[in-house]
């Protein structure tokens, strides 16, 4: 079972590395905790992991990628999804406020309307206030998807997030590729459509679980076809999570791809739980 592997590879400090035996980093630790939560394994190991993850929150509300690298990242949004990560509303609001302050670079008036006059033609780049991985860079699909899911969690107690939440969803929809799926967030460059990837198609569809319409339906059809031919563990897991999020029947079971990394093992466990009815990424607090 995936969560057995996750428990077995937890570091003594409570976190998880990208691979077993490696030092603890925020992203694999967050995914490991999500997998344990999805399996209902919230015991001492989970609590120790939570303690480690909480310690990665910086004073401004962002999260560092690992101890010793004091750089803010949108991993704050991913960490927000881990059940029990917040010890109180103040720590949660610190992160939510940080997320609300983040805009992908290119969102100012100059960058939207004047900059493109001097730039190569790409997607209409920055018309939506979506999220970058790190401040000072452009918005991309994965951090925006994390942020959308994180802001959804708090929308009842924080009505001020509604505008950005909608902007994030709009960005995701706008970056839909010509083939119907999503890649890292660049659907077109130099007037040429870019292809989608299974794993990021899955990420986008999970984030857009509350959205319907023809774009979503077309994407779900593609996701089902991608599932049939995908050999990547991470790709299969995200596609499963996406199809479950939209209550689509999963295609016939596939042999899983080889899960080599902590994130891949965690995603397999999360996907298995979602197929069994518990979608940890969509749970309300």
């Amino acid at each position, binding site marked *: 079972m995936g969560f057995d592997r996750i428990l077995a590879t937890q570091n003594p400090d409570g976190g998880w590395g990208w691979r077993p035996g490696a030092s603890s980093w925020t992203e694999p630790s967050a995914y490991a905790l999500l997998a344990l939560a999805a399996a209902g394994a919230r015991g001492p190991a989970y609590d120790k992991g939570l303690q480690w993850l909480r310690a990665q929150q910086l004073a401004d509300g962002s999260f560092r990628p690992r101890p010793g690298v004091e750089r803010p990242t949108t991993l704050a949004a991913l960490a927000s999804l881990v059940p029990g990560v917040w010890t109180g509303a103040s720590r949660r609001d610190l992160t939510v406020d940080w997320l609300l302050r983040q805009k992908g670079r290119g969102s100012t008036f100059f960058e939207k309307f004047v900059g493109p006059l001097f730039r190569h033609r790409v997607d209409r780049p920055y018309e939506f206030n979506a999220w970058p991985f*790190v401040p*000072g860079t452009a918005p991309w699909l994965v951090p925006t998807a994390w942020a959308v899911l994180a802001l959804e969690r708090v929308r009842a107690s924080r009505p001020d997030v509604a505008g950005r939440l909608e902007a994030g969803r709009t960005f995701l929809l706008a970056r839909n590729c010509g083939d119907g799926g999503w890649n890292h967030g660049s659907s077109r*460059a130099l007037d040429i459509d870019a292809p989608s*990837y299974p794993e990021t198609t899955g990420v986008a569809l999970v984030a857009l679980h509350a959205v319907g319409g023809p774009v979503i339906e077309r994407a779900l059809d593609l996701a089902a076809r991608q599932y049939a031919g995908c050999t990547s563990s991470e790709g299969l897991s995200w596609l499963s999570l996406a199809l479950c999020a939209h209550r689509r029947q999963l295609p016939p079971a596939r042999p899983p791809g080889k899960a080599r990394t902590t994130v891949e093992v965690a995603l397999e466990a999360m996907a298995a739980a979602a197929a069994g009815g518990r979608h940890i990424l969509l749970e309300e607090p």
Partner: protein
Amino acid sequence: MISRRAWIGASAALAAGCARKPPLPPPRVSIVRVPAYDQSVYDTVARLFREHKVDVRGKRVVLKPNLVEFDSGTVINTNPLIVHAVWEAVRAGGAASIRIAEGPGHRRITYDMAEAAGYFSLIPQFEDHFTDLNTDEVSPVRLASAHSTLGQMYLPHTVLGADLIVSIPKMKTHHWMGATLSMKNFFGVVPGSIYGWPKNVLHWAGIAQSIADLHSTFGPKSFALVDGIDAMEGNGPVQGTRKHTGVLVAGWNLPAVDATCCRIMSIDPSQIEYLQLVADPADLALDHVRQIGEPIESVRTRFEMAPNFRHIRTSHLV
């Protein structure tokens, strides 16, 4: 008796002569015809290593291929046969350790891409010898030059600790840079775990400028071997098409290697922005680079370019 003015002038001339750096020997770049990815590649690579006196005895060596996309049927990635040939040459040369390392910029499923590209099947115990540079341990390093605004970066221990890096790119056009060769290959050392996917911080700092700064940091301990057997033309580096060029290009001077590759591709190297930043045009001039092996005119072929770079294509340039 010498006048004071003459004495001052003579002293200044003497000081300038002492301060002037001795001219560097012309960089040597090999061009070898290799018609196909077959067993002859192994002997060819070994010969290139001898030709350029690549001494790996007791050294920690990192092989840095170009692994970009999840597609075995295209020319996006460095062919694993080339990487294995380099591996065997380095192993035979008595290296203390050998790692194959890459950090793809768009997709995070590195091991799956390597498997699809044939690395697992061709290179024994590949997973044991491979490092995903996107998720390696990192340390802060001040870049060795300041063409960009990057300044200091967190870079992977695997490349920081290497005594020798063999840059093994695929010869490709690039829709933002014109060409992507041995120097742009260093974008793959920037960890996505710190800077995200894609590594957009490099674009905002200036792509050409970032290439120049990463080259200044890693170039001095690097040897380049460019996989130009099946190259990519058109809308590179991902959506271009196959261009059989049938060459391997190698050398210690990465700008000279890249300039040579450009000439083979019928691209004017003086129009490549990152080459302009790192080298005086005279240092990359055809009559300054010592070409070994095939003459350029015998292997030069016209690469299709993205529309925004057609102006740098010079089919008449030798």
